[in-house]
């Protein structure tokens, strides 16, 4: 038995697939690549694969992590080659390495997600309005956001989940677009979605941007002690 950890991307061509679809796609990649994947026992055997953190429909990422259990430890370069040859458009393999057991589940390790949101200004709104709303947002101790779930309404304090102040700046090659950087904690009791932070910025702090046209990108997933950020590939 061996555990393989992959760092992969979810690119623009597959931006609109769900986490479940992303996982299903990778399962088929693994089977096409003929990796010696391990399966669970029982009538409905499933491939032993696990992800660090689910990505929402519409969100891209350059740093997704997936653990895959194999029945034997094959040579890494050959494995990578086999995987790469079967990846659909929109998924790139950035790195692969064996994780020496025993190790904690990816989901239990990762505790910080970093996002970049690119969103157009509404009607060419003035830049200082954007700056103001971000400043006001950052200076609040508590920002309550009401989450609408199928189970009902739930109130969350967004600030509790933010590891750092939000940063907004004009996009270099297009000043009509704002780039917003967020560092969001993934805690044992859950997390908050970047789109929810954006909604709060718009609804509670009057940020003049077009939420529907926002492009959200996850630029990193980390394990942090509050000072140093390490990727799941650095921690074993």
């Amino acid at each position, binding site marked *: 038995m061996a555990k393989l950890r992959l760092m992969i991307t979810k690119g623009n061509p597959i931006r*609109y697939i769900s986490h479940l679809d992303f996982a299903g796609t990778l*399962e*088929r*990649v693994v089977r096409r690549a003929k990796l010696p994947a391990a399966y669970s026992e029982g009538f409905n055997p499933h491939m032993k694969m696990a992800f660090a953190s689910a990505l929402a429909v519409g969100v891209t990422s350059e740093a997704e992590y997936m653990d895959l259990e194999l029945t034997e430890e094959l040579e890494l370069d050959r494995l990578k080659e086999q995987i790469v040859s079967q990846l659909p458009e929109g998924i790139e393999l950035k790195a692969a390495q064996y994780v020496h057991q025993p190790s904690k589940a990816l989901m239990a390790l990762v505790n910080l997600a970093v996002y970049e949101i690119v969103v157009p200004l509404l009607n060419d709104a003035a830049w200082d309005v954007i700056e103001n709303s971000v400043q006001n947002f950052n200076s609040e101790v508590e920002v309550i956001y009401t989450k609408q779930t199928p189970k009902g309404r739930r109130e969350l304090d967004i600030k509790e989940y933010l590891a750092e102040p939000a940063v907004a700046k004009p996009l270099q090659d297009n000043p009509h677009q704002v780039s917003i950087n967020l560092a969001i904690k993934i805690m044992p009791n859950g997390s908050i979605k970047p789109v929810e932070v954006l909604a709060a910025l718009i609804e509670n702090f009057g940020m003049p941007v077009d939420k529907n046209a926002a492009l959200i990108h996850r630029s990193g997933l980390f394990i942090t002690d509050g000072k140093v950020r390490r990727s799941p590939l650095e921690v074993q």
Partner: protein
Amino acid sequence: MHPINTVSPAILSKVLKPARYTGHEWNSVNKDVNADLVSFVLAMPDVYEVGMSNLGLKILYQVLNNRPDTFAERVYAPWVDMEAEMRAANIRLYTLETKRPVSSCDILGFSLQYELSYSNILNMLDLAAIPVESTKRDESHPLVVCGGPCAFNAEPLADFVDLFIIGEAEEVIGEVAGVIAEWKKAGKPGGKAHVLRQAAQLQGIYVPSFYEEEHNAAGRLIALRPTQNEAKPVIVKRVIKDLDQVTFATKPIVPFIEIVHDRIMLELFRGCTRGCRFCQAGVLYRPVRERKMDTLVNYVQELVDNTGYNEISLVSLSSADYSCLSPLITELITRFKQQGVSVSLPSLRVDSFSIELAKQVQQVRKSGLTFAPEAGTQRLRDVINKGVTEEDLTQAVSAAFSAGWSTIKLYFMIGLPTETDEDIAGIASLAQRVADLYKQIKGRRGAKVTVSVSSFVPKPHTAFQWFGQNSVEEIERKQKLLRSLIKDRSISLSWHDARTSFLEGAFARGDRSLGKVLLRAWQQGVKFDGWSEHFKYDAWMEAFDACGVDPEFYARRHRETDEFLPWEHLSAGVNKAFLVKEWQAAQQETFTADCRHDSCGVCGVCQDLDVDIVDWGQK
């Protein structure tokens, strides 16, 4: 031409399942578009998940894209939310591969799987900014072609379609692409009319504008006459003689999102000569032609390698009739078990099922079993020539229960010719006996019996094509009666909306007069008629009324066998005399044997189409 991104994130973030509209799937094909390349768009007038599940389109995608002179792309009906966004933002219907407008392609082909999808064809043409009526289109618009089972009665769509493919398309679709390729290379001499004249000379191609209706003094249709030299009086279907020699969908597109049939589809054979008298597919796909077991096993190897799927569904009209089924399943299970691959069989005939088969399939994964007795009494099963007895069902179900199954689905039809309330009661008692059987075998309750009842719609080219369909009220009365007769809590009952079956019935046996009704109804906003939440019965009835067309004339009316039928110029190879004989045999409740194992019933297919039954169990 560069690929363009037509749809903005602002739109895609608002619609349900946006990945329906973004493409890039594994095994989807892209080619460098140039002026000589034939641009073929394969379309299904239904949503992505339905269209992507159609085996015929998967095969044709591979057949066309194997040709260096052709590039086939796909388009499906946008769901209503996406349609609204597209109309608001003035986005034309685009292909999934290159995202270019469908209207910029040479030929747009729709698969006709059921009559209730016709309104979506008009809607998709309109979304593509292509005039829906063929007479209003010019040289700048693509040719519109339709194929699939419903093309065997093409007349209701004659106003909208330039040409129809009658029968199996693997070969002829390439011939059509070849005609267009040559025509484009030559600088499109004679315009699209030239292509139609060339195509009309190919076997299996029907160009409706080359024919006109002839009526008698009473206004009844008496003929469809060719008006051009190239038009044949009768268009005979295309049929593949040797299925081992044609392209199969071994490299199908693997979608990112879950579709209806999200697994490997393995077609074991084509055709079924059991001779059920209600069954249109049983006539259209005659004769039975099996693939060799070796061919099938090789296909599965390729399919597993190319897709990464771990589930194989054996699809054929009656898969359990495959002569080498048991060795095939054994081979598939042994060979692919390591990779966690499972095999599933859709609907089973009750007589060809065995304990052995049940256990074989069960080895990897167990799902519910489906049987189709079709009618509740032996008398009615004899009328429809469903050659199974209650004894057969009892044996099959007992075997299934003993082997560990507890979920059984039973398919029935109501509204069949000669049906009485006794036959309806027979459905309830048959279901009850199945539920009781479980208790007998297992010594406890716990069976789950699902009774699914559809309303019979008489179809062209069948022995029942002369039968007057039951009225909506009569079907609803029978549904209610059945409901009242099922009392056991382990039996659940589901049925179809009688009104959709009535509309389906009118279009199934309709003629050209229905074109104006379809146009009017679409203008009034009908679409996705097969989806109950979108079905607008009143809008349809208003359209019939406004056009002065009586739907009952087509659906409800009993026809005499000497009446000219609107599909008589389109031949499935089965003689009218054979169908008349079968229609009479139905009234007399006499059985006609399967010509594949018994003597030839002289339906005419093998003789007239120069094709043979292929059965590897007997050779």
